[in-house]
C-alpha cells in the first residue's frame, strides 16, 4: 500500500473516532449529570450543577427519600415485570412469526408479511384513544397486563421484520437435513433456528427493551393507580407544579438506569458472541 493511502486511512480513522467521541460525550453528558447530582445535597445541586460531589456536597438524601418514603420498590418491580414479560413474549411470538414467514412458503405469505410490517409505519400512540376504550372494555384498567399487551403490540412489527430478514439467510438445506433426521418442526425452530439467530434476537431485544422501560405515555393513561405505577410514572410524583424534589428525581432516575444496564450487558454479550462466531468462519 502506498504511503499516501496509509496516511489517508489513519486520517479518516482519526476523523471517524473524533466524531464518535464527540457524540459519546454529548450522549453521556446528561446521564453523567443525573448520576453525579443524585449524590449531592440540594444546595450542592443548585450551587454548581456541573461539579462532581465533594465531601462537602455529598449526600444520599435523595436515595433515602426514594427508598424510604415512597413505593419505589413497587414501581421498580412493576417496571421490571412489564419489561421482562414484554421482552419474553415479543421475542418468542416474533421469532415464531418471522420463522413462519421466512421458512414456509404458502399463499398470502407476502401479503401477511406486509400486513405485519405496517405496524412499523403507524405510530401506536395514534391509537391511544381506541386502546384506552379497549382496555376499559376488557376491564384491564390499572393492571400491568394492559401495559404488557400494548407494549407487545408496539414491539412485534419491528421484531418480526428484522428477524424475518435474518431468518431468510438461513439455508433451506439445514431445515431439510433436520427433517431427514426426524426433527419435529418445533424442535427445528427451537434447537436449530433460534440458536442460529441469537445475535439478531439480542439486537431486537435491546431495541424492544429500551422504549418499553422508558415509556411514560401508556403508564400515564393506563396505570394511574399507585400499586401499578412504573418507575417513569413514579418519578413524576417528585415533580411538582411549583417545587420539584430534584434529589429524589435524580436518585430514582439513577436507580432506573441499573436494571436496563444489566439487561443490556446480558444481551450485548450475546451480540458480541454472535458476531465473533461468524467472524472465525
Amino acid at each position: 500500500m502506498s504511503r499516501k493511502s496509509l496516511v489517508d486511512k489513519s486520517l479518516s480513522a482519526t476523523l471517524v473516532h473524533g466524531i464518535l467521541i464527540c457524540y459519546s460525550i454529548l450522549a453521556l453528558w446528561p446521564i453523567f449529570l443525573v448520576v453525579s447530582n443524585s449524590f449531592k445535597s440540594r444546595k450542592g445541586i443548585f450551587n454548581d450543577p456541573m461539579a462532581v460531589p465533594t465531601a462537602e456536597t455529598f449526600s444520599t438524601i435523595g436515595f433515602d427519600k426514594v427508598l424510604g418514603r415512597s413505593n419505589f420498590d413497587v414501581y421498580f418491580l412493576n417496571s421490571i415485570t412489564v419489561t421482562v414479560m414484554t421482552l419474553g413474549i415479543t421475542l418468542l411470538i416474533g421469532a415464531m412469526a418471522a420463522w413462519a414467514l421466512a421458512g414456509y412458503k404458502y399463499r398470502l405469505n407476502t401479503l401477511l408479511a406486509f400486513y405485519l410490517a405496517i405496524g412499523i409505519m403507524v405510530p401506536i400512540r395514534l391509537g391511544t384513544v381506541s386502546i384506552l376504550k379497549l382496555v376499559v372494555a376488557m376491564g384491564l384498567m390499572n393492571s400491568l397486563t394492559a401495559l404488557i399487551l400494548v407494549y407487545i403490540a408496539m414491539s412485534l412489527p419491528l421484531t418480526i421484520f428484522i428477524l424475518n430478514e435474518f431468518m431468510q439467510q438461513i439455508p433451506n438445506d439445514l431445515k431439510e437435513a433436520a427433517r431427514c433426521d426426524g426433527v419435529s418442526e418445533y424442535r427445528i425452530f427451537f434447537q436449530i433456528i433460534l440458536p442460529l439467530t441469537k445475535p439478531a434476537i439480542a439486537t431486537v431485544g435491546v431495541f424492544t427493551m429500551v422504549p418499553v422501560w422508558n415509556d411514560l405515555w401508556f403508564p400515564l393513561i393506563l396505570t394511574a393507580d399507585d400499586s401499578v405505577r412504573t418507575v417513569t410514572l413514579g418519578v413524576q410524583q417528585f415533580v411538582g407544579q411549583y417545587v420539584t424534589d430534584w434529589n429524589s428525581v435524580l436518585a430514582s432516575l439513577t436507580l432506573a438506569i441499573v436494571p436496563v444496564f444489566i439487561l443490556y450487558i446480558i444481551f450485548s454479550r450475546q451480540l458480541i458472541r454472535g458476531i465473533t462466531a461468524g467472524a472465525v468462519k
Partner: protein
Amino acid sequence: MADMKLEGIYKSYGDVEVLHGVDIDIVDGEFVVFVGPSGCGKSTLLRMIAGLEDISGGDISIAGEIVNNTPPAKRGIAMVFQSYALYPHMSVRKNMAFGLSIAKLGKAEINNRVDAAANKLQLTELMDRRPAQLSGGQRQRVAIGRAIVREPRVFLFDEPLSNLDAALRVNTRLEIAKLHQDLKNTVIYVTHDQVEAMTLADKIVVMNDGNVEQIGSPMDLYHRPANLFVAGFIGSPKMNFLSGSVSGVDGDNVTLSHGVTLNRPGHSCASGDAITLGVRPEHLQASGSDLSGSVDVVERLGDVSYIYLILPDGERLVIAEPGTTEVAAGDQAGCGLDVTRVHLFDGNGQVIG
C-alpha cells in the same frame, strides 16, 4: 431389503410440469446415479424420494411399501446435501448424534455408532470442532458420517462433490465408492458430471427435461446409447454427430450420403430420410480416408491427442489419437470410420438398429 420402485412419477409446480412420468426400478444394494444437465429434474426427483417434495402423481415404494405420504425420517433414508447442511452451532459429534438422539436411542448405542462412523471416515480427531473450523472435504465427510450413523436403507446424495476442488473430488469419489463396497446399501446419487456417473454407478439414469432418456449400466450407455441425447451426454470429448441422409437401402443394409454402408437389421429407413451419424472421437482412426478435411486445432495431452477437423461441408469432427500426433494445424487430414462402432440415429434422434 430395500428394493425401490418409482412408478409414473409426476411433479408440477402450479401449471408447470417438471417431471413427466418417471419409471425406475432399483434393486437392493445398487448404486444408482441420476445424471443430466442442470434443470432436468434429477434433484427434484431425489428430493421427492427423500420426502422433501410432494409427489404430484405416481407412486414411490421402498421395500414394497408405498411411501408417498411417509415423512422423511420414517422412510429409512439418509440424505447428503450439496451444501452439506451441517448444523453450524453444533460440534461434529453433536452433528452426527443429533438425529439419533431425536430418535431416542440409548446413549451407549449413539456413542458406538458415532465412533464407528468417525473411525471409518477418519474424523476421530475432529469430533469437538465446529463445522466452521473444518475444510470443505472434512465437512463433506461429516455430512456423510451423519448419514451413515442413521443406518439407512437408502443413501441419497445430492451433488455431493460439486463444492470440492478437482483433486479432492477424485479422492472423495473413491471414498464414496469404497464406502458403498463396505456398506452395500442402496445408493441414489445425483450429479451433472458424467465422469462421476460412469465411475460410480451400477446403473445410470440419464435424464433430460423431466424425462428419463435411458437407464442402463455405464458400458451399456457408452456402447449402446438409445438416442442422440444420451450419445452426446455420455463420453468425453463428446461424440461426433454428422447429419446426412439415406442414399440407398438394400435389405438390411443402409447406405448413407457420407458414403458408408451400415448393416442395421430391422431398420425402417427409406431412401432420402434425414439421419444423424454418430461416432466417438476415440473410434476414429487418424489414418484413413473415409472422411477428410483441414485441421483446425490440435491438442496434445501426452497420452492422447485431439485433432479438430473441419470437413468440406463445414461440419466439425474431433479425432482422439493415442500418443502424440504429428499432425499440425492447417494440414489436410483424413480419418477412418470403423463401421462396427458407428451409431445411426433417425430424424427424431432415436437410434436405428
